[in-house]
């Protein structure tokens, strides 16, 4: 195992020495943020006037806001004027075959069990005709269109379906929502737009497509998913493979709208670059995600596996407006080395008989700091609403931290809220038991940690559950013993 650790470390370092992802910025603007930059981004995308106005409103509002400091994470101040807010799809040096790719990187892909053609896309190898990502994308698109599902990059959707975008953009997360959401609203680069019409059950998990599609979406993505009456969609975002992104700041916004009887299942596997073992570099991931259960009997479910990023700041929430609507949040957050995570959820119960479930599993190793922060709010009209929350933390090593900050507000007598939290370390007796049966300490810990997260993994689409499991063991490598 030690040799493997050494190898991984080497891999992490080599990557940067060789400038593996050195890209040739084809179409970037000078660093800095101003109204002109917002106008420039909008004009480069040929956006309609109303969208530009919306961006400008967001920008002007952003200027009045202060960066939040209530979270339990520490980082040096971000200079928002030093970032580049627009860079067209980056041209990376194309390699002619997988043989030219760093073998260590390939090995990591192998461990994660990523299909060959996806490996090529990830490693930026020119994909041959058969596995051309575009053609794959096209096939998928045709199937989707047959069912009436609209699934487009955001910038295309703005032109093709302006009425839908206009109607729903900012309807769940207004441009004035918070510091990072306002910033995103002003400068968002691209993202996905998804519309499932009435009564349609989306024929496929919107995942593989996105994995390819999302390759070059920049640091400020925006996702909007609308499920009309009776529609059903399962969506997976993120990238399970190690992704090197040189952007320091990543501020995305995700909005979900579910009408009567609709169901949206949104899964995230996030593995951005976490920085090196000394805590240098890594992504600051400040994401605003919120779903609105507008209709009766609607359901929104968030499942997330967060193993990457130097800092994760993210609270996928559900507004349970429709009667009998259901909100769910299942999360595994891992902080190893110097990673910090402040993540959780908000469940706002407005309608009658609304139900929410929160299962959060935090794992801290090294000097990682993991915080669960959540809010459950039962409004006055939330008759017979129910919530069950469970936040468990697992500590590996004596220098890490696990914290919980749940807020519970109840204004209705018939509402029931239950909250449980526990913090413990990996039991020595459990490790001993497994070692006695011939497992190495590392494998034993992996097995225990996976068992700890099982409740959440079981909810991920199958292939991603497998990857997430492996991802976790890669993340925790070297943190034991």
């Amino acid at each position: 195992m030690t040799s493997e650790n050494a190898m991984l470390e080497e891999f992490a370092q080599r990557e940067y020495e060789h400038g593996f992802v050195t890209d040739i910025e084809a179409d970037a603007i000078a660093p800095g943020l101003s109204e002109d930059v917002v106008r420039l981004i909008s004009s480069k995308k040929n956006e309609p006037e109303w969208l530009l106005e919306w961006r400008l409103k967001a920008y002007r509002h952003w200027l009045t806001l202060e960066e939040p400091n209530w979270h339990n994470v520490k980082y040096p101040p971000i200079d928002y004027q030093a970032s580049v807010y627009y860079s067209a799809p980056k041209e990376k040096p194309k390699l002619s075959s997988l043989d030219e790719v760093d073998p260590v990187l390939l090995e990591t892909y192998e461990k994660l069990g990523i299909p060959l053609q996806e490996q090529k896309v990830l490693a930026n190898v020119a994909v041959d005709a058969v596995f051309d990502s575009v053609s794959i994308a096209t096939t998928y698109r045709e199937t989707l269109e047959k069912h009436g599902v609209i699934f487009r990059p955001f910038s295309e959707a703005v032109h093709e379906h302006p009425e839908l975008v206009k109607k729903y953009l900012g309807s769940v997360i207004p441009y004035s929502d918070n510091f990072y959401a306002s910033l995103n609203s002003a400068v968002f680069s691209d993202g996905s737009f998804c519309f499932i019409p009435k009564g349609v059950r989306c024929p496929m998990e919107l995942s593989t497509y996105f994995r390819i599609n999302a390759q070059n979406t920049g640091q400020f993505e925006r996702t909007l998913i609308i499920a009309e009456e009776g529609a059903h969609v399962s969506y997976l975002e993120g990238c399970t493979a190690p992704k090197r992104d040189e952007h320091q700041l990543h501020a995305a916004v995700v909005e979900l709208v579910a009408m009567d009887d609709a169901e949206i299942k949104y899964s995230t596997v996030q593995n951005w670059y976490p920085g090196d073992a000394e805590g240098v570099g890594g992504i600051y991931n400040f994401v605003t995600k919120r779903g609105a259960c507008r209709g009766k009997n609607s359901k929104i479910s968030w499942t997330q596996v967060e193993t990457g990023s130097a800092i994760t700041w993210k609270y996928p929430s559900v507004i349970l407006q429709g009667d009998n609507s259901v909100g769910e949040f299942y999360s595994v957050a891992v902080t190893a080395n110097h990673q910090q995570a402040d993540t959780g959820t908000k469940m706002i119960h407005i309608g009658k008989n609304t139900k929410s479930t929160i299962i959060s599993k935090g794992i801290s190793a090294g000097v990682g700091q993991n915080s669960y922060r959540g809010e459950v709010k039962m409004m006055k009209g939330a008759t017979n609403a129910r919530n069950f929350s469970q936040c468990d933390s697992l500590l590996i090593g004596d220098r890490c931290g696990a914290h919980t900050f749940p807020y519970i507000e109840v204004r209705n007598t018939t509402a029931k809220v239950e909250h449980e939290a526990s913090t413990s370390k990996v039991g020595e007796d459990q490790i001993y038991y497994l070692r006695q049966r011939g497992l190495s300490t590392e494998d034993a810990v992996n097995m225990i940690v996976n068992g700890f997260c099982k409740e959440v993994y079981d909810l991920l689409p199958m292939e991603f559950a497998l990857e997430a499991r492996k991802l976790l063991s890669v993340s925790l490598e070297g943190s034991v013993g």
Partner: protein
Amino acid sequence: MIATEIETYREQHAAFQRKSSPEWLVELRQQGLDAFTRLGLPTKRLEDWRFTNVSPLTANPYELSSLTSPDNEIVGDEINALVQQATLDESYHRLVFINGRYCEESSRLHDVSSGVIIDNLASVIRSRANEVRDQLSGGLDFDESAFAALNTAFIDDGAFIDIPDGVASDRPVHLVFLSTGSSRTVSHPRNLIRLGKGSTANVIESYLGNGDVYFTNSITQITLDESAELDHHKLQHEQIGALHIAMTRVDQRTSSHFRSHYFSFGGSLARNELDCVLDGERIETTLNGLYMPKGDQLMDCRTRIDHAKPNGNSHELYKGILDDKSKGVFNGKIFVRQDAQKTDAKQSNQALLLSDDASVNTKPQLEIYADDVRCTHGATIGELEEDALYYLRSRGIPIDFARKLLIFAFANDVVQGVELAAVRRHLESLLLSGHELSEDIL
């Protein structure tokens, strides 16, 4: 509004400081006032005051009663009645404070074993200035709490209890704080309790009054030396128009045991902060609390347990019963520092909502920096269990009575943790009469 409020307190302070006091105390009070001026009264924008808005209650200034009334107040029937009401057991030591000043006439001190000091702070400041000085100025961070700073600015009187090493004090000490008078009076009692190595004690603090609108801003500082054991009870029975803000700070050394029993019934706004620092190994801390707001009352309970050293245990149980338009706030923080391995911390907060207009905000909070620990917290909020009601009704008990029975049982859980018989009886009869139940059910 707030600026003028601060100004009023500054003026009062100037008048107050004219009274002859030792120089160090004058200086300490000045530091308190400076901190208060800098901090100002808390607003809802502060995380710690998010759910508790003090501004309507502090909009009009309160007056320091020692400035308006003479020191040697004549004890009238009204006060006797209040003392009578507060009395739990004649065998207890009793120290009575009226509007923050010690009242010898109403107090009753029995003989004490040698070395034990049960006195009032003002007299101790005169007789043992050096000892008190360190206790008053150290151990309390008034830089971050406006009300602690305000209390420090007006340090004047309060209880002083000092139990020397190895003494098991036989009689509980009952501290009675009365607020009287028709004007908007404010008092800032400051109590010091110190237990030496291996000593034990029982202390009860009772707060009540007969004025309409008044403000109690009290601080109790407790120090427990090695293996000391203290049971601290607080019975908050302020008048319905009162503002009650209190902070109890506990410093615990190795192997000491601290048990707190907090019962909150009165006040239009009552906020109780309990801050325990477990600076030693094998410490036991138990915090029990019951708050029962009704009408428009707001009750805010804050606890903070700071595990700084290994092998500490803490148990916390707070229950709330909320009726009418009342509001409840619970914030329980548990810190486990990096050194505090093998800590076992349990926290539980349960709230019962009896009315559609009542609301509760709960914020348990765990911050853990050590790995070999077991920490759990649980919170439940809801109405009475349907199944339990059904069970009782199926046995012929009418629904109203069944409800009362269940509410009583819910609250009685906390009351049963009190070991002093007189205190327990007092609380039981209060709960029973509150629900029109007879003692037969016990």
